[in-house]
């Protein structure tokens, strides 16, 4: 019995390699066709002066040096840091909270789950526009509501410091349905006998959450954090269609700089920005993977 077991896997593994690479092939073709060249171009041209058409001219690290000297870039890094923390703690936290609330299946849980999805059904562009109108001083709901209590209230949310940062944050802060769905998925996957066993041992709701549900949702939460922080790195519409990075550079971020540089025909500089986004993303991936031990199966 035992000897048979030792031989079987190795045979299986070898036989499997064919299958494994066959399975990997289609997605790898997608990767090669759509991503290899852009990644290569981004890295290579970030060391050049390039107008996007004529031959790039090699200029070493000049783009990077210029970038770190620019105020917009420094503001972007500061904003990104703040937004990442807000995303990881409050955005993901809110999504997890809603997931736990829904998991208990209170009255109306299905409705809530369905409705929570709706803002994500709409494009980021449309949503940004809706928010611009919601925060509009004359016709927006927010200010008109506040004016019912304080008639002299006038704030141009997207255009005054420090409100612009807050308003941009509010366009995404609570819309964490993806987090909720991913976490719910893992919650529902927890074997029910685990709960029953814990209940028999007299565990409270809080203990259940702390010792069973949260640890077993580790992967889901890690995934959510990665997804939500990388979404902050790549956030574009929410800013471009509301504040455009203003007032001044208050709500600047890397993609806004990138698009602006392209507008100025500075493709090399734009791609140096892209490289920084890339490196930041890799760092976040690595960090969250380590923190949440995401490569190990939870069971």
């Amino acid at each position, binding site marked *: 019995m035992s000897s048979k077991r030792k031989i079987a896997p190795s045979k299986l593994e070898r036989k499997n390699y064919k*299958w*494994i690479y066959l*399975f*990997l092939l289609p*997605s*790898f073709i*997608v*990767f090669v066709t*759509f*991503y290899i*060249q*852009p*990644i290569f171009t981004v890295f290579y041209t970030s060391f050049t002066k390039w107008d996007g058409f004529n031959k790039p001219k090699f200029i070493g690290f000049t783009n990077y040096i210029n970038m770190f000297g620019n105020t917009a870039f420094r503001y972007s890094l500061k904003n990104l840091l703040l937004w990442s923390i807000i995303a990881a703690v409050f955005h993901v936290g809110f999504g997890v*909270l*809603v997931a736990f*609330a829904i998991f208990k299946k*209170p*009255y*109306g849980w299905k*409705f*809530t789950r*369905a*409705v929570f*999805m*709706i*803002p994500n*059904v*709409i*494009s980021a*562009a*449309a949503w940004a*526009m*809706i928010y611009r*109108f919601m925060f509009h001083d*004359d*016709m927006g*709901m927010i200010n*008109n509501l506040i004016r019912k209590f304080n008639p002299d209230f006038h704030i141009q949310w997207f255009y005054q410091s420090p409100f612009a940062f807050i308003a941009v944050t509010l366009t995404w802060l*609570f819309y964490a349905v993806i987090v909720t*769905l991913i976490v*719910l*998925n893992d919650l*529902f*996957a*927890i074997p*029910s006998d685990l709960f029953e066993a814990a209940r028999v041992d007299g565990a409270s*709701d809080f203990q259940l959450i702390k010792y069973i549900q949260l640890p077993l949702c580790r*992967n889901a939460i890690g*995934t959510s954090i990665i997804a939500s922080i*990388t979404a902050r790195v*790549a956030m574009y519409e929410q800013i471009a269609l509301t504040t455009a990075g203003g007032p001044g550079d208050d709500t600047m971020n890397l*993609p806004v700089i990138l698009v602006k540089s*392209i507008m100025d025909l500075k493709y090399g500089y734009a791609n140096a920005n*892209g490289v920084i*986004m*890339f490196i930041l*993303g*890799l760092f976040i*991936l690595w960090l969250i993977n380590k923190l949440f031990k995401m490569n190990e199966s*939870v069971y």
Partner: protein
Amino acid sequence: MNFKNSGKILSKVFTYILLLFTVIISIFPIIWVVMSAFKDNAMILSDPFSLPKQISFEPFVYIFSKYDFARYFVNSFLISVSSTLVALIIFAMGSYVLAKYDFPGKNLVFILYTVTLLVPAQSKAQPIFSLIMKLGLYDNIWGVALVYISMGLAISTFILKPAFMAVPKSLDEAAVIEGANFFTVFWKINLPLAKGGLATAGILMFLGNWNEYFYASILTSSDATRTLPLALQFFTEAFSYNYPRLFAALTVVILPGIVLYILAQEQVQASVASSGIKG
């Protein structure tokens, strides 16, 4: 006992406040937009809360008489559904082997797939545009669909890999002992058991494709290939001074997605929610 009860009530109250808050922030903005579409300019500006006094369909009549929304809807639908289905199968296969098997280059492939999330759309524009041109798919909805297949690579790998990891290996082994081959193990055992993840990844990819604007705008040119997000863009620049029409256009563009979602959500949520996985 008393303490425990009040704690329970408190947690109940908190739960419902949370749910109520979630519902309000999710649908109130949309109700407001739809409501505003039926008002006139002056009412939108002076009294944003009131219900429309006399319902005016003028903005909608105008929009529908000038634009072929049925076509835009069909285009969006065909592009999104086809690209999502193809992408789901391709990425499920990839994520499955990444989740379940050890092989040389595994970590590298995983890292490469996930970093694709970080390549800015503007940097990809040039190579993708030239590819579509070479394939002769410019101004063709299948060209757009082809590009959309690639979009979900990172996010679906994120979601599908853990989903397959959650399927117990013991089930695979049992099936192998019973004589199932590699493909059968994937198709008959893992795929059904990972349907929650598949549904989530599918929804996310569908929504991404449904709402995508940038590539649709550079890869198409005629009215026949226009998608809904493109149509919205035509309105926003044009009607920017005419709020009722702008709100009507917003309504017309966002409602099909919402209706589609409501129609499909029973199935979607059911498959996400089904807890029989470990059954």
